[in-house]
């Protein structure tokens, strides 16, 4: 591979980790058969959950929309195979807070009947706005794990007038290799997806970025780019260092521009899409197949033969593990995602979702003695890719000092987990930071609620004051009219009042 390692903007810190990718890249991608039952969460994207548009008992076909996005941010959910809607109910899923989420359960009929295919249109002749709407209909979200709805991201990018599309094939987290094998086996789809995305964005530059530890993928892509002969496309290699594949980190590596705190890559003229997302865009726009399946890595020392598989969304994880040879022994942890940022789940009934780039089964995580106090060695600061001082943030998190946490940049923490790995005191820093962020968000919500209550209270005071003034004015008016009516009328009013008071002793 002749592409030079692209190292324009250097990343602060980061870690070279044992990659553990070889275990799962030895064999080609295997198709997982359609299961008897599919479980499709109505939220598989950033934003509000989609709203189901089918009822229990409805027949559905493969590719049929079963939940529509609600609000500005979201993506539709499609049925991944044909069958009948059996239930719409909570089901165990991988999420950070809580165990279950509402899912549409489909009993498959085994025929895997598809909707009549949409007439394929040549995207080159489509106006960009139509292309964007079309992408929205495909249910496509970022497949790198963050599941940001792709259409919305592209719209933001167009509004911000970005110059460059970066296709993220870095895949820096250990064990995960689904993008690697996808680039090897489906390089044409990735390249075609990149061209469609450029058309949708109306830009003339796209850079595919791959970490240097994927020579086979780099070679395949280089061949494919030579075949495509499209001077808008370039291929770049970045050093193998975790977390180079983080969106902001990738932008920094390739463009030497820092994404501003609280901002997005579009603020520095870039938009980043995962290579898997590009292939999904190709499948939808050129082949008419919405996002109903994905490639995922089933790996770890808890599975018999680690393997990349392509499975329908909604397939229970247990079925995926079966394809990878089943469990080895009785593993202790099941992780959705990679070993640095994944979420552990307690059951393998959880379904494969758009975010699932890896199913990691671990026999054991080596026990780490008791957590010792921080000795301020600073190793965490040395590896932090955003140049935070985790040791100081940890101290302030323990003290729950919200002001200091803001000051020391807790919100800028990307939760990559590097600090945990180098901490000689074995402090679970990232978990602490996640909790602290959560507390801060709750505090902000509480403040917002208090502010709303205050506004309501003040509005009420204003209203009461207005009503009192109105009453006073009315009384004054009555007095004036009584005065005008003469003394007999006043005596009659007073008599009436006296009688009313006698009737009502209070």
């Amino acid at each position, binding site marked *: 591979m002749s592409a030079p390692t692209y190292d324009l903007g*250097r990343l*602060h810190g980061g870690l070279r*980790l044992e990659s553990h990718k070889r275990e799962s890249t030895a064999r080609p991608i295997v198709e997982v058969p359609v299961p008897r039952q599919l479980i499709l969460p109505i939220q598989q994207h950033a934003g509000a959950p989609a709203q189901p548009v089918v009822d229990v008992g409805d027949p559905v076909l493969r590719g049929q929309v079963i939940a529509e996005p609600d609000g500005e941010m979201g993506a539709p959910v499609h049925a991944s195979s044909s069958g009948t809607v059996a239930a719409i109910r909570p089901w165990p899923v991988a999420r950070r807070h809580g165990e279950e989420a509402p899912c549409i359960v489909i009993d498959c009929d085994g025929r895997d009947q598809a909707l009549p295919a949409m007439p394929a249109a040549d995207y080159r002749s489509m106006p960009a706005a139509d292309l964007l709407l079309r992408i929205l209909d495909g249910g496509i979200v970022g497949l790198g794990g963050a599941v940001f709805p792709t259409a919305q991201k592209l719209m933001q990018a167009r509004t911000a007038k970005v110059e460059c599309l970066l296709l993220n094939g870095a895949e820096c987290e*250990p064990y995960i290799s689904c993008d690697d094998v996808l680039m090897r086996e489906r390089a044409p789809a990735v390249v075609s997806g990149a061209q469609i995305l450029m058309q949708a964005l109306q830009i003339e530059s796209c850079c595919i970025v791959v970490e240097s530890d994927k020579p086979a993928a780099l070679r395949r892509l280089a061949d494919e780019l030579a075949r495509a002969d499209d001077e808008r496309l370039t291929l770049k290699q970045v050093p193998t260092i975790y977390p180079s594949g983080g969106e*902001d980190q990738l932008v920094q590596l390739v463009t030497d521009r*820092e*994404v*501003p705190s609280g901002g997005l890559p579009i603020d520095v003229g870039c938009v980043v899409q995962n290579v898997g997302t590009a292939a999904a865009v190709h499948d939808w726009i050129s082949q008419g197949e919405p996002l109903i399946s994905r490639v995922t890595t089933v790996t770890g020392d808890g599975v018999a033969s680690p393997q990349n598989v392509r499975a329908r969304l909604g397939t229970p994880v*247990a079925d995926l593990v079966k394809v990878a040879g089943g*469990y080895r022994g*009785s*593993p*202790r*942890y*099941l*992780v959705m995602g990679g*070993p*640095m*940022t*994944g979420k*552990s*789940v*307690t*059951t*393998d009934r959880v379904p494969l979702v758009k975010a699932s780039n890896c199913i*990691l089964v*671990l026999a054991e*995580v*080596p*026990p*780490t003695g*008791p957590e*010792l*106090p921080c*000795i*301020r*060695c*600073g*190793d965490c*600061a*040395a590896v932090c*890719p*955003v*140049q935070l*001082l985790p*040791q*100081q943030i940890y101290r302030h998190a323990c003290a729950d000092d919200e002001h200091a946490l803001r000051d020391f*940049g807790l919100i*800028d923490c990307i939760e990559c*987990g590097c600090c*945990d*790995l*180098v*901490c*000689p*005191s*074995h402090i*679970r820093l*990232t*978990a602490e930071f996640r909790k602290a962020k959560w507390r801060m968000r709750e505090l902000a919500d509480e403040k917002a609620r208090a502010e709303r209550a205050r506004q309501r209270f003040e509005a009420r005071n204003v209203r009461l004051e207005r009503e009192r003034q109105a009453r006073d004015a009315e009384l004054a008016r009555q007095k004036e009219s009584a005065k005008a009516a003469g003394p007999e009328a006043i005596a009659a009013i007073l008599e009436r009042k006296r009688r009313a008071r006698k009737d009502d002793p209070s």
Partner: protein
Amino acid sequence: MKFERRAAPFIAPRGDVGNIMLQVLAALVPAAVAHVWFFGPGLIFNLLVAGIFAVVGEAGMMWARGRRPEIALRDYSALVTAVLLAFALPSLTPWWVTATGALFAVVVAKHLYGGLGFNIFNPAMVGYVVVLVAFPKELNLWVAPRMGDLDYQHLSILQTLTFTLTGNLPETLAFDAVSRATPLDMMKTGLNNMATAIEIRAHPLMGDFGGRGWEWIGNFVALGGFWLMLRKIVQWHIPAGVGIGLLVPATLMYLLDPGANPSPAFHLFAGATILCAFFIATDPVSAATSPRGRFIYGLGIGFLVYAIRTWGSYADGVAFAVLIMNMAVPAIDYVTRPRIVGHAGRRASHG
């Protein structure tokens, strides 16, 4: 299948505190051997006494604070404190002096401030300063290096042990016969008596750079220090800071008036300079925490060592310099926070 819950990351951390402390201890072995070679077995007894009392103090305080003592003992930090204290003390030190220092270091400077990670001051240096102030006479018994040509009465192992336990020399020996001024002491008294630095350096106790014996121990300490740097346990910021902070003023003054000022090489090799640069000032708990902050912290210590040696009334100033800079740490940490990526301001230099 049922699985357990756990927060990411799912990869075990790489190092641990106990392992780091053990490597620090290992790095001091060559220097300890050299010390015994040149100054007799006194250091061994100092190490034993300091070690025993530091460990007992640590265990006792953990117990008193309602925690499991073995957690603290397994990190070996009390032993590192004890070893640094033992290196700071003269090789002839009565046990109660060493014990006072060790207990004060661990009980007061460390545990009364909250234990490992919470002590503001370097425990070993607190212990040393306490005994320096409380037992000035006992801290004066520095012996001469064992060099063939030096007219000097050596103590046997048994005599050294007896002195450690009782504070008495054999009846036939007077204190004057065994003790010698340290090179730094000699320099200070000599300069005060209007001798020139060059005249003082001509004394048989003085070596090529510092004092005889001392400079060799310095070499071995530096060897251990570089090994720790190779192992990435010590970063360059503090040792370089101490070196520059001390050598820049020393060189300037030496160039201005070589008669009244010892050479920078003397400052480097005499006293505890090298031990301070690699082992004392680098205690992470009481040092500044950002790389830039650590360099500034080291600079401060180096300069204060020079200032105390030159203008103060103590011959060496390492302990005071470290404690004073410990006080400055919160301020240093506050002003040297690195710029967070994505925030406006100076771009990082990736140092």
